[in-house]
């Protein structure tokens, strides 16, 4: 997965709240799976936390378990009371930190 960490964020205003949708390329390997050909364990490589900051203030935090699918998707709402920027940050168990942002109108 050469494009690990490549992310997309969408914000859609719906009245006084906005719906945030975000996807990120990531294998989300649990460490429990084996390579079918070699029989070797595939090392764990998964996102542990996700954070959303809206104009510098933390508005969303997630802690993820092994069940989260590959190329994970997450969605939540924010009270979009001022124009600005929503910044998403994903951190994985190998020290990878990935960010992507979207404008809030």
């Amino acid at each position: 997965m050469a494009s690990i960490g490549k992310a997309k964020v969408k914000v859609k205003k719906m009245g006084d709240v906005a719906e945030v949708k975000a996807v990120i390329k990531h294998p989300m390997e649990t460490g429990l799976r084996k390579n079918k050909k070699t029989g070797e364990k595939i090392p764990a490589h998964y996102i542990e936390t996700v954070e959303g900051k809206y104009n510098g203030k933390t508005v969303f935090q997630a802690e993820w378990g092994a069940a989260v699918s590959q190329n994970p998707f997450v969605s939540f709402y924010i009270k979009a009371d001022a124009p600005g920027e929503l910044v998403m940050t994903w951190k994985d168990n190998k020290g990878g930190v990935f960010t992507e942002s979207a404008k809030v109108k």
Partner: protein
Amino acid sequence: GAPGLLRAAGKASFDELLKFNNKGKLTLLHFTDCHAQLLPVYFREPDTNIGVGGAAGNAPHITGKDFLKHFGFQPGGVEAYAYTMTDYVKLAQEFGPVGGFAHMTSLVKAIRDQRGADNVLLLDSGDTWQGSYTSMVTKGQDMIDACNLLGVEGMAPHWEFTYGAEQVMANIEKLNYPFLAHNVVDTEWEEPVFKAFEMYEKAGTKIAVIGQAFPYSPIANPRRMFPKWSMGIQEDAVQERVNEAREQGAQVVVLLSHNGMDVDLKLASRVVGLDVILGGHTHDAVPQPTQVKNPEGVTLVCNSGSNTKFLSRMDIEVANGRMTGWNYRLIPVISNLIPADKEMAGLIEKIRAPHLKEINTVVGKTDSLLYRRGNFNGTFDDLICNALNTQMESEVSLSPGFRWGVSLLPGQDITMDAIYTQTAITYPNTYRRQMTGEQIKVILEDVADNLFNPDPYRQQGGDMVRVGGLRYKIALGESIGKRISAMELNGKAVEPNKQYWVSGWASMGEVDGPPVWDVVKKHVQEKKRISIEPGYNLKGIV
């Protein structure tokens, strides 16, 4: 030679088929699940259609004599022939084949003439582009041309998806009317892929038609063909679309559904504001709508059969911006009673001409009635299962419980055309593999739960997987894992840990055996004459 128009018995006539107690100004016409049958066919309705969880004894879970009694039809009449399998062969010989696009067209034209074309709305619930050789090789183009000519004004999909996402999108471009499916979202953003509803103006009335695709297409058909589309019943979204349509001024709101009738009946009891559900998928031919109460009113649930065998007509009266009255008839399309529309007949001839050598090939003859429809094996399925076991050298064969596929009367030739009506899909390949007795049981249990789960929202339509070689007992009231028992093969109990050779087709995964029609063709050519007694595989229903 084909019997003439006068051949049909009793007082059945074209005028009789057109008879209707007109109401209001607006007319909805509906057909569904034509499965690409351009020409008239024989189609025997099921003898077994079991309802579970309170559905027993009500439409669509009544068959045969019970059906006639329930709806007040005489045995031996045109309704008995159209709606049931009672005296099937005798009545089929008397009334002749059913459906066909040229005959359907004449019927639609006659109603448009009578009511005024601007007051009539013709809708199709889908399974339109699949089910024949020509639809398969033209990837649905033949049916697009035929439906455009017929003047269809909106459709909802299911088997359409099996041509693959790209082909579906290209096909939609060629339709003269909208392809409606509010419940399909993309797997990346979970946003709508197709148009949700269309607002029509007919008879001075605003009619919103919401399209509902078959909710379980990605489970019942190979998901790899449309990997980026996700579906589901999406009851809340149906309610949102209804509200949206009403806000936009809809006076009549219709769900053009491919849910299957049991799902529609449950949905109608929970969603408010729907006037009519015009449904398909389960191929139920129900002569009158089921009136379903919900917290704010009543929804009429209709199901219009299959194979162009029926045309639904509903006249609607509108007053003060609301539907206030209706009349309904599910009109049997008895081909011999209806003149063929010349233009449509010409188109059909043109469509079939390049393929006549293949489809007219006669591979054998049947001495017994061949049919598919019913909760358990039909005789056409038995023929396919026997072909698989013989040609693939397997002990057990599995064939999907599709509800399409035409019937052949005793004495008819078995043509490739007929075989394709039973097999023409985009994943026709056969497989042969070893399975343990336990694995075979798991498959039967899984399909049985998709069919007999007491919660309609967990039912996927279709019938029980057809089996060759195997016999079993089924306990309908049990839960998954406990329904199937007493499995036996050649008089011996099936052992859970023993390996058996199993063949089949229409696999969800990719397999590379010969297409099933070749297997059936070879088998019939070797046997020359086919005669099958029904009911071998089912040892009992508890």
